[in-house]
């Protein structure tokens, strides 16, 4: 009956059947009028995607040194490639929730310690093999364990044991975690046959496309996987990814029609690009943010008044206007913004040179403060430090800037020196963001923030299944961080992408990365 209805709805949309006739036939099949109406609506959307054609993507980040092993993927190009051929158990929904992919359903024990993922029956890898819970188990095993080089190791660490039980994959955690499914949306964790243990770089998975040719750092060609289970993805017959790292060259490729979509449009030129008649600039608010980080355990930043003085001495709006060219929003000295699921708005901290001066005086410290920066710590970082220096000057704070080389910045300066510029890409949930960078024992606690109450709240919230209580806990934690932490977060940067009129189907993603969380190539289609 369902197929018949779908067929009728399609005829209505294409004008081959009148609405009245459709409702009549639907009623004959025992469907109510409202349900029938909504069917026409979804058929209209479904009629949208055109099948076939080639989508060309100009993408940044790839290099000839990249590996095709999803465990080692660490840039936008490799992430997009993983999205083509592979699928994780669950994925972030564009509206902020969860979407089932290889898993058909998820359930947990009442204390959120044991999680079961029922594997979708009868879906196959692109090599024809049926996906089993053993494959899922093997995949997760390859990303965990002390020997792995996987970028997802941090996520896998909290797992006590895993097993495959028939068509169910079961995870038992050390501690309760209500967010586990969100963590498993990590892009490294795509399911591979036998977990990729025999050939991790084969690019065989359950995704909508199959890799046809690969020249790492240059060009990748994908063709539609005819056996893909999900109709709503994989519209184009061929997808070509072209690695264009140079900003100007990437924009020129879009303007000259050589590619249909690009990501990382430089905010500086986004306004100019959007003036072209056949190009649309797309901005997506995301969790990514640019930061100035102080070590809370190193003088003079161990003095909370020094930290507070610097927080009052930064002009957040000016940073958004001049560094992000408006493509972003002001931060509030916490890593959390409205892109997170359980967000509560806190009172906004404003630039206030008088208060900055007051706190500086109260701290008793009057020497210069050294801030380190580099070009690659975030786009425009040296300019942002110059603005910070000026706004500090107005508060009588002597900020000295040291420009560090890009080479070795992440190993020698970030997470090593007491005050520097950096960025965070954000995480899918508060819990993962806080545990990655603000938990006392975290490896990447790059502000050396050690707060007992904060840690307790973090663990309590993780086990809390009551969303209202959890929301309050996260608001409390953000407040602690904002007032006591070593993080100065002046701005959240938007993802800025651009597409040409040759492709359609753009859908705003609430979280994840730019380019529709890197799903734009598989979810968009070639417009007629």
């Amino acid at each position, binding site marked *: 009956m369902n197929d018949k209805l779908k067929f009728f709805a399609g005829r209505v949309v294409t004008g081959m059947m009148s609405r009245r006739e459709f409702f009549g036939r639907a009623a004959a099949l025992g469907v109510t009028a409202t349900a029938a109406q909504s069917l026409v609506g979804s058929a209209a959307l479904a009629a949208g995607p055109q099948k076939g054609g080639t989508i060309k993507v100009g993408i940044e980040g790839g290099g000839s*040194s990249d590996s095709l092993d999803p465990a080692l993927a660490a840039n936008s190009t490799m992430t997009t490639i993983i999205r083509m051929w592979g699928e994780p158990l669950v994925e972030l929904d564009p509206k902020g929730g969860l979407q089932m992919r290889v898993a058909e359903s998820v359930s947990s024990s009442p204390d959120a310690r044991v999680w079961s993922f029922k594997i979708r029956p009868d879906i196959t890898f692109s090599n024809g093999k049926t996906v089993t819970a053993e494959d899922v188990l093997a995949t997760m095993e390859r990303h965990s364990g002390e020997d792995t*080089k996987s*970028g997802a190791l*941090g996520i896998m660490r909290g797992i006590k044991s895993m097993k495959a039980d028939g068509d169910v994959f079961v995870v038992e955690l050390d501690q309760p975690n209500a967010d586990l499914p969100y963590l498993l949306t990590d892009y490294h964790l795509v399911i591979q046959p036998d977990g990729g243990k025999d050939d991790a770089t084969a690019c065989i998975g359950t995704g909508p496309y199959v890799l046809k040719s690969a020249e790492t750092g240059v060009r990748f060609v994908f063709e539609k996987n005819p056996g893909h289970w999900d109709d709503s993805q994989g519209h184009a017959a061929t997808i070509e990814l072209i690695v264009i790292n*140079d900003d100007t*060259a990437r924009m*020129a490729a879009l*303007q000259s029609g050589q590619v249909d979509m690009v990501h990382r449009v430089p905010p500086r030129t986004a306004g100019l690009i959007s003036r072209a008649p056949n190009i649309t600039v797309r901005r997506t608010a995301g969790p990514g943010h640019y930061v100035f980080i102080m070590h809370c355990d190193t003088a003079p930043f161990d003095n909370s008044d020094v930290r507070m003085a610097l927080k009052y001495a930064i002009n957040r709006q000016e940073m958004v206007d001049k560094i992000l060219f408006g493509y972003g929003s002001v931060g509030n000295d916490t890593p959390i913004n409205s892109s997170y699921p359980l967000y509560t708005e806190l009172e906004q901290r404003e630039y206030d040179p008088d208060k900055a001066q007051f706190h500086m005086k109260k701290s008793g410290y009057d020497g210069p403060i050294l801030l380190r920066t580099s070009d690659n710590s975030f786009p425009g970082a040296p300019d942002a430090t110059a603005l910070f220096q000026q706004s500090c000057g107005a508060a009588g704070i002597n900020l000295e800037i040291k420009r560090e080389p890009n*080479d070795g910045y992440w190993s020698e300066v970030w997470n090593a020196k007491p005050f520097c510029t950096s960025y965070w890409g954000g995480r899918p949930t508060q819990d993962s963001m806080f545990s990655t960078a603000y938990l006392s024992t975290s490896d990447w606690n790059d502000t050396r923030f050690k707060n007992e109450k904060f840690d307790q709240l973090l663990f309590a919230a993780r086990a809390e299944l009551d969303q209202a209580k959890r929301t309050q806990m996260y608001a409390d934690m953000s407040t602690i961080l904002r007032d006591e932490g070593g993080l100065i977060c002046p701005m959240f940067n938007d993802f800025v992408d651009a597409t040409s009129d040759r492709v359609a189907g753009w859908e705003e993603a609430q979280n994840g990365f730019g380019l529709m969380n890197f799903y734009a190539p598989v979810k968009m289609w070639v417009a007629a």
Partner: protein
Amino acid sequence: MGPALKLVVQRVALGLLLLLLVSALIFAGTNMLPGDVAQSILGQSATPEALANLRRDLGLNEPALTRYFNWLAGALQGDLGTALTNGQDIAQAISHRMKNTLFLAFWAAVIAVPLAIFLGLVAVRFRDRWPDKLISAATLASISVPEFLLGYLIMYFIAVKLRWFPSVAMINDSMSLGEKLSAIAMPVMVLTLVVLAHMMRMTRAAILNVMQSPYIETADLKGLNRFQVIFRHAFPNSIAPIVNVVMLNLAYLVVGVVVIEVVFTYPGMGQYLVDHVSKRDVPVVQACGLIFAAVYIGLNMLADIVSILTNPRLRHPK
């Protein structure tokens, strides 16, 4: 042994010695780079465990001298090792990229060298008159503009506005020669503009130098036309300096086109090197360094040999 042959042998030996020294420098230099390979590969999102595992696997704990001699012995046998970052065979990856770089350099040279020499001859023929001044001004202007800017300008006008040629110079094996040439048209244009001035000016200067000689006056007095005098009598005697500067520019077309390759997204050696430098992939950086040095030293050696052989005093000793 004739003095010419002796000089040539000496020159070759010197070239090889130089290459050996350069290899030592490259090895020492790459070992002094700041930062750590494992950290660079894993980026900001590296956990200490992942770092330790990667470092151990990469064999970063062996002494430097042992690594140098192993590397040199391997390189002499054509084995450049495997890339740290993705485990691919370097010699294989480089040969593919080298082919692309040589393809681009070849077509740039095919256009630039004859054009430069011809313009040089024209400049001499119309010395101090408007064609000379125009050629000099135009070529000097094009060499003075940074090459990436030249690239962007040409890209904007020819690819974005006029849409004559693609802005992304992407070539692959499935393309026909015509398609490949159309793809590389813009980088070839830019490279031609960049190397033209140097060769043209040198041709002009070298020929003018010879033009002062008495035998040119004789040729003039014989009643030959001006262009014939320049081409038949002056040019052959100024080949040595011209070949020198041509070789320098050919070497540049192979080893110095990093910026152009990045701007036009051309899959050549330069981009390959840049990608791996930023990831601290030391074996690849060393291999590229060695190949670039060999190309440079080799072409310069060739230029010297040509100038030895074209010198009549050395070919016909008394």
